[in-house]
């Protein structure tokens, strides 16, 4: 067995120090070691996007980054984003528009959507579709998700 590596990072605002198996990817670390089960594993080969988490402010695939690479990093998961009240409009829009069914992809989808909204660029529906194309949803057919993101984005741009 490989030597365990010490890492110290911030997860959802709290400092975490742990020993990790070098081969463990970030999502397994969050789910197994920290009990943050809101990030899901849909493929573990970087295609589905269900494991999306935010590292140093950017959304990445948690299954395509090693926990050992997050030493010193700032990691945010859906749990932290919800608890901080961030993306509240987006989450509310997802619920109101029924932009989720089984909910397995949704935390990852929301993180990606939140990044798009935060960038605040005016996007048409096809552009929103392209921006979300890295997150697979097998239930909704996407339209309700696009509606929800479009609604929140337009609202944000109107305010700005």
């Amino acid at each position, binding site marked *: 067995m*490989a030597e365990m590596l010490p890492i110290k990072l911030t997860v959802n605002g709290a400092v975490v120090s742990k020993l990790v198996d*070098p081969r463990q990817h970030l999502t397994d670390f969050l789910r197994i070691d920290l009990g943050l089960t809101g990030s899901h594993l849909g493929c573990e080969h970087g295609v589905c996007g269900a494991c999306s988490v935010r590292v140093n402010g*950017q959304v990445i695939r948690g299954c395509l980054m*090693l926990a*050992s690479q997050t030493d010193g990093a700032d990691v945010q998961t859906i749990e932290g984003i919800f608890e901080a009240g961030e993306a509240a409009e987006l989450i509310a829009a997802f619920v109101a528009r029924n932009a989720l069914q089984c909910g397995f992809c949704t935390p990852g989808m929301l993180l990606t959507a939140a990044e798009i909204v935060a960038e605040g660029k005016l996007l048409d529906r096809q552009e929103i579709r392209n921006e979300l*194309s*890295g*997150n697979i949803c097998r239930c909704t057919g996407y339209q309700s998700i696009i509606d929800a993101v479009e609604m929140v984005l337009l609202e944000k741009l109107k305010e700005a």
Partner: protein
Amino acid sequence: MKASTFKYLHAQSKDEAYAAFAEYGDEAVILAGGQSLMPMLNMRLAQPAVLVDINPISELSGIVLLNQQLHIGATTRHVDVANADLIAAELPLIGCAIKQVAHRGIRNRGTFGGSLAHADPAAEMPACAVALDATFVLQSRAEERRVKAVDFFLGVMTTDRRPDEILTTIELPAQTSNDAWAFHELSRRHGDFALVGVAATARRRSEGLEELRLVVFGCEERPRISKIAASTSLSQKDALELATAVAEDLDPMSDLEGDAKTKRIQARTLIQRALDDLFVEGANG
């Protein structure tokens, strides 16, 4: 599936990486953005003994313009290339093509140099590097080499990089306002690897196109610059004939998405569309 066991080294400098190469030889594999390597690890298709993480080496990241050459550090993230004003201004071909690279979450983590060093024949950046006549800077403890993009890609996921070398910088001549360029890619879905793609640059003259660098990718073992297309200046009426000739000159690999004949038809269409763009100013703006 979970990766098999490996030793993980967090290289803080190139020297630390070289030391790891010296100690572990072929057993050591470079981890950059990891967007191609990590899936292979997770599927146990790759089972390296040692991973050398070069992300901490800060000098490997960044974009600068020097003497009309853009120097892109190998670990510059795709997102940073895509968002850079310098790229938009000086390398519009890259600026356009990089939007076709995978998806947001991958571009946020994946690196420019990683994509080139991985050398997937269906990837966009290697084709653009060839079309733009890029030079790859490879450094080992002993020496620094400069390799032209056209010589760097040797085959499917095979490059001229030696196991003890780091791809540090990619140098790309800035495109000028006289330079026409075009990029067309056919993929099943947005962000997928190309089934067939074309990256092209040329100088637009009143009588036609000159210095045409037409690269077809995705269907052969590596991105290939067409010699047929490069030979003469091209007038618009000869475009269809050239597209057909270039397509017929291809030796496409059959795969799940089509046989060689299919790929040739698709390539011809894309080449034709790329040539149309090259003739029309602002077609790809």
